[in-house]
Each structure stands twice: as C-alpha cells, then as structure tokens.
C-alpha cells in the first residue's frame, strides 16, 4: 500500500527512485503542478526531494502544514531555498570527493545516532555530501547533524503537529542516480521511519519504465 507521497518535479532521478520495484509499492508520485488536498488522502508521510520546484511548493505550502497538523511526517531534502520553511538555508560548495582526498574528515562531524533514521548507520553511510546549510532553524527544532563549524545540516521539529525533518543531504535523488552505491542503508531506514515498512533487496531499474508516454 502506498503510504508515502513524493512531490515530483518531472526530474528523472526522482522518477527512477519511485518506480524502482524495491520502493514503488510504497511511494506515490505526486506531480507538483497537480498537487492538491486529494493527493494526500491515505498517506502517512511526504517526501520533498532535492531538485524540487520550490516556487511551486511555496504556492501550496498550506497543504503541507495542514498534513503536518494531522500528525503526519514530512521529510525535506536538499536546496530548500524558498521562504516557506521557518528556517534559513544558504548555499555552500558541494564536496563530492572528501572520501577520496581526506576520508578522515567528512563534511559532517556530529550526528545524533539515536534518531531512528540514523540508528546503526556508520559515519560514511550518514553523510555523502551536503547541499548548503541551515543558518537558522525553527524555534523548537533540534539539530540532528552538524558540520565541524557548527552549521546545521539536518534538523527535526514537532512544533507543527507531526514531524518535520529537513536536511541538506539528498538521499532520494542520489539513490535514483545510483552512482553512490551505499545509499540503501540510509534510504531503507528512512522508508522504515516514514512508513513502518521494511524494504530489502537490490535497487533494480526496469527498462520498460523508460520511454513512457504521458
């Protein structure tokens, strides 16, 4: 049963992730320009991936806060650059090669491994690269991951009713891209936290999913 919605921007990495047999029974693609209250019926959680159309999301932010008000979970990743969050995101250079050049100095130095997404993950599995940082976070939010300079990468709050988790990591998009091979550890725990469903097995990409009409 599909209990997790994914706000979909027509971007291929989001599509590849949500249509992979490993996840597709749990993920409902919600095309951002068709997003309305009915889209959220029956869902327990909402994913807002990196490479989203933040302007289109901002125009529909009331739907997201109403969903949170019903006690649901919302996970936001990447460049949350618009002002629809009570937080300030700032761009920072992305370092894709720290694990080659300086493996003992990951971009994130502090992680709350008691959080359900991070329980049992290694440091490397909990951070591959970041897309900017949060310089302010909501009043009642708690930092989950920080950089060595103290800037916040991931935070969580319950002040809107449900649980809002935001991070400048990009697990959904990168797992769809399939160039970082260890992301299943993070994503599978994220899916379990959002839905209560455990997933396992390989990430397959069925050829018949490509070349589709609309």
């Amino acid at each position, binding site marked *: 049963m599909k209990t997790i919605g994914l706000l*979909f*921007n*027509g*971007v*291929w*990495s989001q*599509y*590849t992730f949500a249509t992979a047999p490993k996840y597709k029974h749990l993920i409902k693609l919600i*095309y951002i*320009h*068709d997003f309305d209250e009915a889209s959220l019926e029956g869902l327990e959680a909402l994913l807002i991936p990196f*490479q989203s*159309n*933040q*302007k*289109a999301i901002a125009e529909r932010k009331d739907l997201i806060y109403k969903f949170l008000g019903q006690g649901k979970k919302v996970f936001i990743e990447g*460049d949350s*650059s618009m002002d629809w969050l009570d937080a300030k995101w700032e*761009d920072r*250079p*992305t*370092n*894709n*090669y720290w694990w*080659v*050049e300086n493996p003992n100095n990951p971009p994130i130095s502090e992680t709350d491994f008691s959080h359900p997404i991070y329980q049992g993950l290694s440091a490397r599995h909990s951070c591959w690269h970041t897309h900017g940082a949060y310089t302010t976070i909501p009043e009642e939010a708690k930092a989950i991951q920080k950089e060595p300079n103290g800037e916040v990468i991931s935070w969580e709050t319950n002040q809107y009713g449900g649980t809002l988790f935001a991070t400048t990591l990009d697990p959904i998009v990168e797992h769809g*891209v*399939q*160039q970082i091979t260890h992301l299943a550890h993070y994503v599978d725990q994220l899916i379990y936290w959002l839905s209560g469903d455990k997933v396992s097995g390989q*990430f*397959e*990409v069925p*050829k018949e*999913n*490509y*070349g*589709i*009409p*609309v």
Partner: protein
Amino acid sequence: MIQAAVISNGLDGIQNYFVSNEKITYTLLEVGKDFDPDLEGFDLLIAPNGSDHIAMAKLKGKVAQFLDEGKALFCFDGWFTNWIPGNQWIMSNEKKTIDIRYFIKTDAYAIFDGVDVDKLIYNHNISGWWACGYIDASAHADVVLEDTWQRPIIVLDEKTTNGTIILTASGPLGDSGAIPSGNETSFTALSKLYQNMLNLIIKKKNHENNRITI
C-alpha cells in the same frame, strides 16, 4: 546571434548556467501548470539537467513541429518520457561506474575538437561521474560518443527530423562557469564541448540564411 529557449524547472541557480552573450540570447521558459510555451522565434530549444519531463511530454507535438521547421534541440538530461523524436534515454545501473570509459565514434562536425575525453571520464580520479544510463539512438543518428559497452552517450541526429538534435545521456552541459564540477579541467572540457555544439548550430543557421534558392 541565435535565440535559445531554455526549459526552466524552477531549480535554484539555472540562470547561472545560461547567460546571454554575443553569440546567443537565452530566454528561460518556466514550467508551471498547463505549460504551453510559444516556441516561435527561437532557433534552439534546450532541456538542461534537471528538466521536467512530464511537462516536456505534453509538448511532444510542439517539439516535433519545431524540429520539422529546421530548428535545433539540445537535451542534456535523462528524458524518461518519449518526447524526443527517434531517440530514447534509458536509465541503467547494470554497469559499475568504475568500469566506465568513453570513446569518440562518429564526430562528423568535430564537436570534440579541443576536448579531452578523459576529462569527461574522470573527476578526482573517479570514473563515471558525468553521464548516467545511455541513449537508445535512432538508427539514422550519429553516435558521437559511446561508452565501454558501445552504448550511445552523445548522439547527433539530423535525419529523424528536418532539424538538428544533440543529446547527452544526462551529462550536464551549460554556457557558463556554473557546471557542477569541482574540477577545473573537467569544467574546461564541458565548456568547450558545449561551445562546439553551439557553434555548429550557429554555423548551420548562417548556412541556411545564406542559401540561395532557385
């Protein structure tokens, strides 16, 4: 001087990749609900990395007409919908990125002139960083670049339509310094490759304008 339309998906920073200059004027066409832009007056349509391929699929007929008028299309993204005439991008994770190498196959217009292919293969000594998946190319198209397994990675197609189609298997290209690479030499190669593609379109347009019909 040519006129280019760039499909914008509302992603942060896209304007930095396509900055108008003495060769070309870029106009961003921002996707929204019921996206149906007027392509009249444009010589070149560009679908950059991170495009909305649901919106593009709804423009399939308009793009075909644009090309049949002798215009040009660049797509530097993974088009999982079937909106590009004769050619289809396919996502695949069957091959390991560590084994990916690229080879020039048919480069009739020398778009790789001055471009070091190794810079598209390696970044910080890691291979397979640039493109994703492969192109199921039209039988009439030139495969300019192929990978280790002879899968098309860059395609130039002048036969399927009356226009010119240049495609990468989601390998990002752009007209300015905002290419997502931390490696200056890889950036230089991508920038040169884009300029060579652009120069070909300009040359073809000038040739068409100067042609005498009897």
